[in-house]
């Protein structure tokens, strides 16, 4: 999992620009993060990890922001902190988002292994292990189910 390292306060307009919001996710994805990392959408590989500084996902409630990252195959988001609304949206889509106060120690291009259950990030490039905050238990089940929609499907299915 290659790490793509971003700075502080990366906003939802950078992740999913408003002028493409009228289209489906397929048309939004090529513009994901283009104002910050112009080659990101073309070169990111499934399984890669986005590592950001403070307040990742600031701004809009638009779910297309985490949806675009998920669509590109991003396996996890790691940040010093997340904007609260974005954090809820990411988990609701089944995209794991973990808070790691040491996120800044990761360099762009490092290879990482993130384990949400243990709250640990192994940096395979540097040999370092970083501690992160585990995803709260009541949300982890939803993430495991694949997000809120799949989780509700399971819950409503059981109720019937």
């Amino acid at each position, binding site marked *: 999992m290659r790490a793509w390292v971003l700075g502080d*306060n990366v*906003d939802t*307009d*950078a992740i999913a*620009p*408003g*002028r493409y*919001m*009228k*289209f489906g996710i397929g048309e939004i994805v090529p513009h994901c993060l*283009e*104002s910050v990392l112009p080659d990101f959408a073309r070169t990111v590989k499934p399984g890669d990890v986005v590592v950001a500084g*403070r*307040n990742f996902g*600031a*701004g*809009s*409630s*638009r*779910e297309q922001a985490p949806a675009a990252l998920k669509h590109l195959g991003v396996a996890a988001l790691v940040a010093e*902190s997340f*904007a*609260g*609304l974005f*954090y*809820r*949206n990411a988990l*609701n*889509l089944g995209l794991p988002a973990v808070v790691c106060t040491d996120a800044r120690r990761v360099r762009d291009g490092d290879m990482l292994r993130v384990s949400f259950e243990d709250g640990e990030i192994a940096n395979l490039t540097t040999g370092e292990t970083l501690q992160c905050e585990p995803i*709260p238990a*009541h949300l982890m089940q939803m993430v495991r189910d694949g*997000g*809120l*929609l799949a989780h*509700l*499907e399971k819950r*409503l299915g059981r109720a019937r």
Partner: protein
Amino acid sequence: MKQTLAQKLVARAAGRSAVTPGEIVTCRVDLAMIHDSSGPRRVKPMLERLGAKVWDPSKVVLITDHYVPAYDEESRRIIRITRDWVREAGIDNFYDEQGICHVVLPERGHLRPGMFAVGADSHSPTGGAFAAYMFGVGATEMLGVLVTGEIWLKVPHTIAMEFDGAFAPAVSAKDAMLFLIGRFGLDGGQYQAVEYRGAAIRKLPMQERMTLCNMAAELGAQTGLIASDALTEEFLRLKNLEAWDSDPDASLLAHHRFDAGAIAPQVAAPHSPANSRAVTDFAEVRPQLAYIGACTGAKLEDLRMAARVLKGRKSAIRLLVAPASLRDQQTAEKEGTLQILLDAGALVLPNSCGICAGYGEHLLPEDMLAISSTARNFKGRMGAASSQVYLASPYTVAASAVAGRICDPREMLQ
């Protein structure tokens, strides 16, 4: 136990007598607001996949504001889906092309002190001006609310922002917010509740209070709150409402106090609302476009501020005004405010989110330098990535339009 306003509102919705910051609770939702972008086009397919119906259509308010008036094939399709779903789902509270959701919702009497509400839009904290707990969620989370009528919440701590005295002439709620965001940053609110209080807040009209709570979003709070008072009742045309306020000794995460009268008009440089400084630092900047728009910057009170500056003056640059609601525009027309803007050379745009959110036909072209009364100036948000947006109050936007450079409105209001 002493409780903050936020704790009291959450406790009521969770069916509890008291709650503690940090604990996770499930709340019953009194009102769910959706719009054409985050609403039917996103939730209808998910409802169908689940074979589920809206838990209580009477508690849903749907407002079209992002893709109206429809201007191309995609926006026409989105609006068609929206209108069809209103009929299918039996939504009576539907406001079509009446203005921006955060302004229309209280204008049409849907908010009450004590309510617990969610909106599928990040500026939903605006509702907190009415002592209601209101916050923004994404479309999938809104689907969860529409199906179950419930949502989980980590009970927030409260950060009190107390403003003593009174704001100076030509200084508005927008200046107060840019000041706070400049000082505490885009994550200063820590996704907790920010409560505005103090003598200066009590003197602000409801729409100015709405601006404070609206921009709790840019401060990174989950919601912004203001205790209810006589002005709340007057705006909602209701009498003898139960008072909602924090207990005097309730425990706070932080308590910041400011002398309101010492705050100067603020301007936020591209590309973040956190780049805020006093207007006088920007005197060399020459915008080509002035924009008065959005839920945060083109309500009736905002139009009045612009008119106070523009009366008898002409804009030296292109001036666009998109009144935040049709009703506010009609009132502005009746009282003469709109005519002042027109006489100054303003072009009036539809009552929708428009340029602020990157929608519509007037997006900023390459290299355009604009001054705007909106909430966010992130790179590329309002048009081309090379455009540059300075955020300011309606007073400052209007004064800058007249001067052709960023201008302190106090110079023009003497």
